[in-house]
């Protein structure tokens, strides 16, 4: 039993670098919790691996959706950019649903503020 524990410990150390991680949203513009002094011109999303973006919604604090021309596409990429309309000063929340290469649905969400 002791040898088994030792063996398992060694194996776990050897392979701990190989920890599996799902694809995730790495960076966004505007960044999460950003305080913007002027109107953001575009919405940019960067992912850790190639994904298909299924849904992006931009909502203000009241939960009202703001249209900005997002349309789901089959295209896979690590970076996506959309032009934003003029945003009134308020808090905004972006919800993103995307599909990794493994076919798993992933979700992320971030918020920013326009002064």
């Amino acid at each position, binding site marked *: 039993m002791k040898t088994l524990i030792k063996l398992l410990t060694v194996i*776990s150390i050897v392979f701990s670098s190989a*920890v*599996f991680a799902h694809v995730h949203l790495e960076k966004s513009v505007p960044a999460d919790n950003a305080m913007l002094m002027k109107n953001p011109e575009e919405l940019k999303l960067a992912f850790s*691996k190639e994904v298909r973006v299924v*849904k992006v919604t931009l909502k203000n604090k009241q939960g009202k959706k703001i249209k900005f021309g997002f349309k789901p*596409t089959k295209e896979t990429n690590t970076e996506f950019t959309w032009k934003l309309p003029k945003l009134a000063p308020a808090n905004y929340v972006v919800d993103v*649903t995307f*599909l990794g*290469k493994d076919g798993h649905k992933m979700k992320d969400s971030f918020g920013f503020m326009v002064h």
Partner: protein
Amino acid sequence: MEMYIWNTVIVLSKIVFYVGFACIAGYTFFRQIFEHNESHSNAVIAHLTWTRTYIVMALIVNITWFFASTGAMAEEGIQGAIDADILAIMWDSSVGTGALLRALGLVTAIIALALRFKLAVNSYLKQSALMLSLLILAYSFTLLGHISELGTIEKGLLILHVLVMAWWFGALLPLKQACHQLSYAELHLLMESFGKQASFALSLLLVACLWLVIQLVGSLDALISSSYGQTLLFKLALVVSILALAAKHKLILVPQLKNSQGREALSKSISIEMVVAFAILSVTAGLTSVVGPAN
């Protein structure tokens, strides 16, 4: 609430598919138990009928799975499951390729079952088509889920893992049927040879499984603390219990057959093994759909 419904449909349809896969393997490797003897023609027909019915069901469920995955992705109710844009994305993704390959594999099996085997050539053709179907279905596992982002070795091991699983679980129903149909001498011979093959196959299964767990979970800590790790541990506990049952068969129940006794006990024990096998497949369906290693 909506996600609960979609996830339930996804998990249930995966379970049906797994069982269908095992049924094909069972038919491919174990139908000769009854086919070599004219007196077992009823068993042959019964085996063919349930396999065929089950594969057709798996095919229908495979389509349901694709639409449910689309619905879960869109989160727009039933409308979302038939949204053209989302469907196009899903069809283009590994989910679509997986669904297509699974449909292809199942249809291949259905065609193979329809082949009459009066000529020896046909029998080979049938067996090759069934093997092809199993390979296509096994390959489809590597496209979906967490393994798809790992290397070629892991994919190879996963194929091995699911093939051995299908062979083993697929054997249970024919073996149970054999308990009631064969003479004690025949049954003992069959179980002895199955036991030998199984010992070898299960060693492969365990090595493959251990390696994949290490690759997916990465550390003992993650195995204990993450929901994925915990579900995996639960699955492993079930696997240990089914191995214990298999050992009991090999060491206690099968030797008794030599003295022309214990066929009922063996049949009953195989029934329990089938329940545990079903539980393992159910946990796996949840593991590969609802909980992820990084969650």
